[in-house]
């Protein structure tokens, strides 16, 4: 175990049908289209109870008293739990800092914080009983921004911090601070012919995965519990759940249920511990399913941010320096804030060459909703700001915005502000060239059908608000820089167990990992890797559970790289073992067993010249080869806390967008006509899935450009729009054509040369749309999302 992965070349052929590079179809596709696929909210057990969570109605308060007597007396109620019922001394959890109470203790720190749990025989009974719990709150002033968090008399959101960031932050209401200093930004600024600066605001985005937080906990006879949930990382959940329950990890057996999307919102725990507590207390299976209202309180969101940037350039268009300060609102609990800070600071420069920088990123503790992981993870907010800066600079210099970017584009060999060298292809200029070279969609498309305007093609759409009057077009470009994998020295490994055996005379391979399939298609790719490496058509993907080692998180665009790498690594070991058995049995019959390079193809052992040496069925007979191995990508380093220097990231990922918009300037309505993307993916293991990832990521970026924002009342820190009625995500009418141009420039450090792809398109999509709206309207637009009133000035 603990094998560190060195880059392995592809000796194994790919001639077996369904291997990597093909658009094989999803193994879960049929179940998903027939309605049979079992999502976490579909779980059912005889005699099960329904759990419900009572949540804080205020954002910051002392909890003076909780009276559960009336709730407990409600017919049909089996249990009511509060903080006092927690079974062990471990009462908090958290991804990195264990600051999140399982149930509020003495204090509520944000609107919607869990305070009590109810289990009842019907979900409505549980809800009504929860409404009978009386909580006496003594409200406290709310901390909502940097000024209120760092004021001299500010109340501390968390008193007595002892986490590993507490010692180096300038104020206890700052979770983490990461500066990066390289060169001399002030001296370089003196060389600049033009300097532009700006302050940018990024709104709070929600992951809005469609499958709500849900699951089923079943108490077991051995005193343990079986938990079926939707998550992004089973073993991370397990590490946080078991101590709170007072159980050893092997008595909390977790199985991944169907996951209805994640996008970062399932990295933190939601109902996992709550359902287990209720199940262990009542001795009955307990199901918890959030509704959409509760889901908005049940998971962290993308950090809203304020970003201040200054860039300079010489008259001939070369960037001289960059200074920035990024303030992320982490809300009441730490969640992934420290790592988001690391990303925001280390990626704040974007995909550009700038030698002299002065960077600072911080995350605050406030009484706003907790924020953590969401697709793009700290890089999204920065990209929105630095791309606006690039357009401003280009305009100041009278240069074309794409040519200006290309002139300063990072490439292989570029030294980043962290001192890390980009040591694989970085085709930033080429991606921009490709989106720019694409033909533009025709103007005034609504007229193409004939004299009658098709209002569906216009801003406002079916609302029939314009037939073209007041509509102007704009075009905008953006490109981004994202890291792949867990960074800053994290031991980011994965585990795969691969088994080959003969069933009914045919070789069959089973791949068992704990990877959370959240929709991305990892299960498809694992089967493809196994076919390629083992030359066996029949591959079964075992359900993900904690009976096999950790796969790490389905996050950070890392699973195809890391768990894909683990599957490849274990398959290689299985292949070696199979060939060893073959040599033992048949080696004396044919010299090629000893001399030739051997491959597995179509269920046979063949030489690289194509000569068949044996059927796998004859090699293995009754023997099964079953190997579980860990695999690691090359290690990373922590960033220095003062200078930000360090080889912090595993791999970089690049995408560029061109947005074409039409804006009704009278009503402030935006229609995105086309959102073209070009992305380098290293190697497209499944081209159809790659396109799907790029189009989906692009659309989430579009959402936060023009509609998506959780509105938090600055006076009360309460969430105003926790519903799909008031928090809008793009519908099929809001989403344009998304042409995709895929480059495959191999990264020699990665399995098959692949590059993590899931997040990069979410970065550049938003600033491209904003740039297009600025281009159409001439407005400055320093915040996202853009709402109609920002365009009409009303």
């Amino acid at each position, binding site marked *: 175990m603990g094998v560190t992965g060195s880059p392995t070349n592809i000796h194994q052929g790919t001639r077996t049908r369904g291997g990597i590079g093909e658009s094989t179809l999803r*193994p879960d596709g049929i179940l998903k289209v027939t*309605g049979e696929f079992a*999502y976490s909210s579909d779980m059912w057990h005889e005699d099960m109870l329904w759990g419900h969570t009572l949540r804080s109605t205020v954002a910051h308060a002392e909890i003076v008293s909780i009276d559960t007597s009336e709730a407990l007396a409600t017919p049909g109620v089996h249990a009511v739990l509060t903080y006092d019922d927690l079974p062990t001394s471990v009462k908090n959890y958290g991804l990195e800092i264990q600051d999140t109470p399982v149930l509020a203790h003495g204090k509520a720190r944000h609107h919607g914080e869990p305070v009590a749990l109810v289990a009842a025989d019907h979900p409505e009974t549980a809800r009504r009983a929860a409404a009978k719990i009386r909580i006496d709150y003594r409200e406290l002033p709310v901390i909502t921004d940097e000024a209120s968090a760092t004021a001299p008399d500010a109340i501390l959101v968390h008193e007595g911090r002892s986490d590993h960031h507490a010692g180096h932050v300038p104020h206890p209401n700052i979770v983490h601070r990461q500066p990066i200093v390289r060169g001399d930004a002030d001296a370089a600024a003196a060389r600049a012919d033009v300097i532009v600066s700006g302050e940018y605001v990024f709104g709070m985005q929600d992951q809005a995965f469609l499958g709500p937080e849900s699951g089923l906990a079943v108490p077991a006879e051995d005193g343990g519990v079986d938990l079926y949930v939707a998550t992004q990382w089973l073993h991370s959940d397990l590490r946080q759940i078991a101590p709170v329950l007072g159980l050893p990890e092997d008595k909390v057996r977790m199985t991944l249920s169907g996951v209805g999307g994640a996008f970062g919102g399932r990295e933190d725990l939601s109902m996992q511990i709550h359902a287990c507590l209720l199940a262990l207390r009542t001795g009955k299976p307990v199901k918890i399913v959030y509704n*959409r209202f509760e889901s908005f309180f049940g998971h962290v969101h993308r950090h809203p941010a304020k970003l201040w940037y200054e860039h300079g350039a010489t008259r001939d268009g070369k960037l001289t320096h960059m200074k920035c300060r990024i303030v992320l609102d982490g809300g009441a609990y730490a969640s992934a804030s420290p790592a988001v800070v690391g990303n925001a600071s280390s990626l704040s420069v974007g995909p550009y060459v700038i030698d002299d920088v002065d960077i600072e990123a911080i995350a605050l503790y406030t009484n706003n909703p907790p924020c953590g992981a969401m697709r793009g993870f700290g890089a999204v907010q920065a990209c929105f700001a630095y791309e606006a800066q690039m357009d401003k600079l280009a305009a100041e210099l009278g240069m074309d915005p794409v040519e200006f970017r290309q002139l300063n584009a990072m490439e292989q060999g570029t030294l980043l502000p962290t001192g890390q060298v980009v040591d694989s292809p970085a085709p930033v200029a080429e991606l921009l060239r490709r989106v720019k070279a694409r033909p533009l969609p025709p103007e005034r498309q609504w007229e193409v059908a004939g004299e009658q305007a098709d209002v569906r093609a216009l801003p406002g759409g079916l609302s029939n608000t314009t037939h073209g009057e007041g509509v102007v077009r704009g075009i905008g470009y953006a490109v981004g820089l994202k890291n792949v994998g867990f960074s800053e020295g994290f031991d980011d490994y994965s585990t795969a167990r691969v088994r080959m055996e003969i069933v009914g005379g045919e070789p069959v391979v089973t791949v068992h990992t704990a990877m959370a399939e959240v929709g991305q298609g990892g299960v498809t790719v694992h089967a493809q890797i196994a076919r390629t490496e083992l030359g066996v058509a029949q591959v079964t993907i075992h359900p993900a559970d904690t009976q096999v080692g950790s796969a790490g998180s389905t996050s950070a665009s890392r699973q195809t790289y890391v768990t894909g790498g683990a599957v490849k690594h274990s398959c290689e070991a299985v292949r070696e073992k199979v060939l060893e058995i073959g040599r033992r049995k048949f080696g004396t019959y044919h010299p090629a067993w000893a001399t030739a390079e051997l491959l597995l193809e179509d269920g046979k052992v063949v030489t690289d010249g194509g000569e068949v040496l044996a059927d796998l069925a004859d090699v293995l007979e009754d023997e099964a080869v079953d190997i579980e191995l860990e695999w690691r990508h090359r290690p990373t380093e922590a960033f220095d806390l003062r200078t930000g220097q360090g080889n912090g990231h595993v791999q970089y990922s690049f995408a560029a967008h061109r947005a074409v918009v039409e804006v009704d300037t009278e009503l402030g309505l935006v229609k995105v006509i086309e959102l073209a993307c070009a992305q380098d993916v290293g190697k497209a293991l499944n081209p159809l899935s790659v*396109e799907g990832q790029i189009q*989906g990521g692009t659309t989430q970026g579009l959402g936060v450009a023009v509609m998506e924002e959780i509105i938090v009342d600055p006076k009360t820190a309460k969430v105003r729009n926790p519903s799909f009625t008031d928090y809008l995500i793009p519908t099929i009418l809001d989403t344009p054509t998304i042409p995709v141009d895929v480059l495959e420039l191999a990264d020699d450090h990665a399995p098959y040369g692949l590059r993590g792809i899931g997040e990069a398109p979410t970065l550049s999509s938003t600033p491209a749309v904003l740039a297009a709206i600025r281009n159409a309207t001439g407005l400055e637009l320093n915040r996202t999302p853009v709402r109609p009133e920002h365009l009409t000035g009303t």
Partner: protein
Amino acid sequence: MRVNFTVNGRQQEADDVWEGESLLYVLRERMGLPGSKNACEQGECGSCTVRLDGVPVCSCLVAAGQVEGREVVTVEGLADFAAHRSEAHPGSGCASGACGTTLDQARRWEAGPSGEQPRDTGELSPIQQAFIDAGAVQCGFCTPGLLVAADELLERNPEPSDADIREALSGNLCRCTGYEKILDAVRLAAARAEETV
């Protein structure tokens, strides 16, 4: 209360239904039909879309008592529903699953058996097959509702324009795909149906 109604062609009876329960809850929790999904339970996302006497509705917004004596089709019954429609109105769509060359094409794209029993692709309705073939399924949580809505669109408009497709599916949210592959799937199903006429 007791509610009697037809689900996917079979008479069903639900007992002890609380008056506040939705059709979605009764389908999912009392009838063992969890295919209709519960993404918002407020009529905004379309993941719970079913046909009620032929009309697509959000089953989360229909009180269970309202379906007394009526007919409901869910995603679980979509393949049968499409097959019967094809028998009743031959040529109106490729509902039998025997869609000539196009299904051969689909089979060529098919991955090897992987984690589930191989199944005759003829057991799927054309729109279901098209969603798989076009890559329109990622997490799949929006898929059942979209399938019911798209099937209804193709029933009344066998050759929809892109604008028609967007209009018909505008009540169904998808968070994974960016909708492009969903458009591809509906176009594919329509094209296959046209080929067989």
